[in-house]
């Protein structure tokens, strides 16, 4: 394989996962929490595709596509929740949303 080896890609993937986890833990706006979740999923996708390339086996790419579909569904439900919160005039702050009662 030309260019960098798999370990370089894995370093990028680990950094993306870490920065996404930092965003999920640190930020309080649920929109940015969702965006950071997307970064975490993309980090794992990069690791899957790098290993798929290393072993010359397409199964990792199939897994990455399934992760992509799950991420899309998660965004649909998450954004629906955020729009509902906005309609109820609730504060968009995950620290203040401490009850699950309707």
């Amino acid at each position, binding site marked *: *394989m*030309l*260019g*960098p*080896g798999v*370990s*370089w*890609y*894995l370093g*990028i*993937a*680990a*950094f*993306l*996962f*870490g*920065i*996404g986890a*930092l*965003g999920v*833990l640190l*930020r*309080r*706006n649920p*929109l*940015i929490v*969702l*965006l*950071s979740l*997307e*970064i975490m999923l*993309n980090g794992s*996708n990069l690791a899957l*595709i790098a290993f798929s*390339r*290393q072993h*010359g*086996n*397409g*199964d990792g*790419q*199939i897994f*990455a*596509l399934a992760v*992509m579909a*799950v*991420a*899309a*569904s998660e*965004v*649909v*439900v998450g*954004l*629906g*929740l*955020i*729009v*509902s919160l906005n*309609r109820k005039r609730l504060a968009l*702050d995950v620290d203040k949303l401490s009850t699950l009662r309707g």
Partner: protein
Amino acid sequence: MIVAADAGNILTWIVWVGAAFACLASGVAVVTFRNPFYSALALIGNLGSLAVLYLLLSAEFVAAAQVLVYAGAVMVMFLFVIAYIGHRFETPWAGGPTWQTVGAVAAAAAIFIEVVVAVGLKAGGRLSHSEKVDRAFGSPAEIGRLFLTDHLLAFEITSIVLLVAAIGGVILGSHSRAAEEVSA
């Protein structure tokens, strides 16, 4: 011949360094920008540079799907919702770092270091060389063959997941509208 291979290698490294730097910088930007609109725009850059990395790993179909599904559909939905909600900045940090901030940074750094150490210790020597792949690897035809033969169950379950998510989105929308009419 050797000179041509070296030139290709250097070119691949240059593209990799550019894409990796853009990827990391836009990832940091998503987490640090205060305006959610700018965060979403930075995430589009992140997804684009990840697609370049996927292309370097000869995953052409996944790169195309990444741009179409993520940067196309998902991010447009994000931007619509952010525009609908309007600018709502987070309240600025009060005072110095709280225990939450310190704990979050420590946890994220621990995840990163743990992954790097675990991968480096367990598989450091075996990651350097890769299998040779043919031209069909990662092409739409190969992905389609895998999806419809070896991974047919995963394919069908993915369709069910998407259907349930669509139903959930409709129910969330209609439920909040009914509650709004009652309260009005």
